[in-house]
């Protein structure tokens, strides 16, 4: 994380502020910072997005490739997450410094996407046992300003929403083999269904209360947080406690409830935004053809 | 040099140019040697006693670091395995207590591996250490011996052919390869490595043959050093 140093008294100030539902940037405990999302920003990917949450900034690119399926699930496609921490975000990411953070973020993404409902992997299968689509999601962290996990997951959902998988033709060839042919038109694509794609909500315990979307200063004051993947319907698709501290068992239900509500609101506003973005993209394209 | 058992009859005379060595082959190293034994050749550079990171320093002796480089590519487990023998020999031979808090770096670069690599490498290091003027308790001398089943003979035993410093072809035909390192003073065993099924009797025989063969290597060492010193005097 970006180097933020806080003295004991500064920490106390933040903790006491939160106790009174007053955070040092004026938000209340369950408020998010301003989010900016843009999709289709990188032209040589199949889908991409750029996101800014407070002072956290990141870029997501999705690439779709042909590959062979997992022998245990021959009909399904695969999805891989890869997170890269740019040394721009923090000098300590130079060399192998950011590796642990990257591994952790990609594991949490895998965790929340690893079930039947988040993304229907069957739609990514082509020929059982032989060919399938492999979706590579690459996240590049440009700036760390707190609450990276939520930001990453929102950007990933936006990028996946924006991803077009080429419509592929499977024809029966000689001797029982099957041949595949790619469409000639690069715009002949099918968009990935992201209706059930989850976003992450991090609920940080600070003092005896919990906050969402903690800034990097608040992250320093918090010693335990819950990260949960929440779908549009308010279901969880994976959860993990982060940080070295422990949690009171009684506070966990409250935190889960908060996460559920916040997650649903996030989905509503994100979907609205994505819809308008998509509409705009179509408009621009039309303009281009004229 | 091939010897038949029992009579120690020399079947093949060793070629006169069996050992070759060029001391001080590298100008920038503290000591170096290009050493070849038959077709196998090795280049060794010795640096030291040199500076060492404070955390690695030992207060009562010097450290020996050996880097064994293959002909191509980066070192693999094979090189690490051989490296350990060179290191063990050097740690024993060099008077490490004279140079506390320092390190000797020894780089062994394989130029050509045509059999008897380990003994060639150890002898090469020994020459390079002399070139560097490192104080040593004794000179380690290495000899490789191979045992091959006599193909023509029908007899049950005592028909194995013993080959001193075998080539790679002879190594592949042999059932057992042994490398011995003796110290030049007491002729005790410094280090040894043998692989291949071997009866104790055969082992004893190899050891004896190897011990005899050290004389020749030692003589070669002496000649090389004499030559070097003589050349130095002329200058």
């Amino acid at each position: 994380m970006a180097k933020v140093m806080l003295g004991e008294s500064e920490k106390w100030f933040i903790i006491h502020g939160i106790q009174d539902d007053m955070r040092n940037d004026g938000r209340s405990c369950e408020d998010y910072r301003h989010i900016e999302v843009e999709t289709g920003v990188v032209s040589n990917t199949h889908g991409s997005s750029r996101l800014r949450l407070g002072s956290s900034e990141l870029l997501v690119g999705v690439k779709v490739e042909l590959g062979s399926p997992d022998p245990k699930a021959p009909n399904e496609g695969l999805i891989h997450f890869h997170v890269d921490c740019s040394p721009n975000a923090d000098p300590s990411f130079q060399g192998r410094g950011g590796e642990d953070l990257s591994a952790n973020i990609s594991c949490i993404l895998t965790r929340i996407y690893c079930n039947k409902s988040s993304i229907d992997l069957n739609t990514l299968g082509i020929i059982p046992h032989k060919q399938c689509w492999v979706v590579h999601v690459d996240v590049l962290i440009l700036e760390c300003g707190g609450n990276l996990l939520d930001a990453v997951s929102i950007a990933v959902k936006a990028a996946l929403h924006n991803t077009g998988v080429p419509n592929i033709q499977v024809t029966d060839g000689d001797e029982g083999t099957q041949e595949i042919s790619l469409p000639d038109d690069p715009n002949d694509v099918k968009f990935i269904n992201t209706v059930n794609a989850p976003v992450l909500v991090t609920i940080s315990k600070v003092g005896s209360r919990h906050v969402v979307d903690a800034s990097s200063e608040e992250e320093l004051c918090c010693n335990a947080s819950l990260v949960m993947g929440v779908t549009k319907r308010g279901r969880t698709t994976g959860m993990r406690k982060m940080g070295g501290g422990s949690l009171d068992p009684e506070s966990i239900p409250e935190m889960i409830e908060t996460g559920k509500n916040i997650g649903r609101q996030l989905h509503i506003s994100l979907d609205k935004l994505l819809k308008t973005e998509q509409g705009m993209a179509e408009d621009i394209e039309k303009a281009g053809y004229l | 040099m091939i010897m038949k058992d029992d009579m120690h009859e020399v079947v093949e005379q060793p070629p006169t140019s069996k050992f070759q060595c060029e001391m001080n082959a590298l100008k920038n190293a503290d000591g170096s040697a290009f050493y070849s034994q038959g077709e196998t050749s090795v280049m060794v550079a010795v640096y030291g006693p040199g500076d060492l990171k404070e955390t690695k320093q030992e207060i009562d002796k010097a450290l020996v670091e050996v880097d064994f480089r293959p002909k191509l590519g980066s070192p693999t487990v094979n090189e690490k395995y051989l490296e350990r023998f060179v290191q063990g020999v050097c740690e024993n031979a060099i008077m490490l207590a004279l140079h506390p808090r320092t390190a000797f770096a020894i780089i062994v670069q394989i130029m050509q591996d045509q059999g008897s690599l380990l003994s060639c490498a150890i002898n090469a290091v020994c020459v390079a250490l002399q070139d560097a003027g490192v104080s040593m308790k004794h000179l380690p001398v290495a000899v490789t011996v191979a045992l091959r089943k006599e193909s023509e003979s029908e007899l049950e035993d005592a028909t194995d052919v013993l080959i001193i410093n075998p080539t790679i072809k002879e190594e592949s035909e042999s059932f057992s390869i042994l490398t011995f390192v003796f110290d030049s003073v007491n002729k005790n065993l410094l280090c040894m490595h043998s692989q291949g099924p071997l009866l104790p009797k055969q082992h004893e025989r190899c050891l004896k043959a190897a011990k005899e063969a050290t004389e020749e290597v030692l003589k070669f060492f002496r000649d090389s050093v004499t030559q070097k010193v003589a050349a130095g005097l002329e200058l």
Partner: protein
Amino acid sequence: MTMPTDSRRLPAPDISYNAKLFTEIEKLSLLDDEEKRADGRYVTQPRDVFLQCGVITQAKGSAYFEMNKTKVICSVYGPKDIEMREEFQINKGKLKCELKYAPYSSPKHGDHIPGASDVEKSDILLEAISSGVCLQRYPKSQIDVYVIVLEDDGSVMPAAITAASVALVDAGIEMYDVITASSIRIAGQDTFIIDPTSSEEFSPLNLEKSNDLNQGMVMVALLPSINQVSSVVSSGHLECNVLQEAIRSCRYSAQNLHSIVRKCLVNSLKKILKQRNTAK
């Protein structure tokens, strides 16, 4: 894609397959008609455990923990001088954790180089046990915890967390509590399977067709005496109320495990005392 060759090990084939992949394996349902599991247990019944301290004499503290086929071994070194100067803290010690799977512990031969999921598991372990260690009593020091999974037959993380905390006790490290953990497989709204084996564990690949969307796993680590939760991990698709119910069950079963672990620890302590007395 070929991996860069590992020059520190012997060369191995790039790809190899488990022979069992090419047989027809009949899929067993989680519960049979009598509500019993494949190994004959009831849904709420955990496996028998075996716990032993001090198995690794070279380490300051160690523990071997077995839940039927799942086997983990753990060692603790320290407190000792901190290795990296950047991690130095004047008022607090530093805890380091590494969890590794032995290559033969899973059905597929494992890779020697740790992957992202190994890093995550080490991290979960670290977070689960660090709230139990009195780190401020070890200024300037470092404590290393190493866990090797010898055989994975489900519920590895709870086993690793429990073993690590027992090993810490064995090392004489000051702790707030002995941490125990437990995991639950959720197969439908009302079916909570305690202490699942690897065939019962949740994985999107071996899901049965079911109308109930609630399919997943929950793991909870608990500091039972002071009633604090040090780790919660869930995966799979769960409704919030089901998740909360599962967390509660997990806590209950971790609490049960604690009394077993306590018995084990006290017995081993008594044994040491007895030996010492007879030696005198």
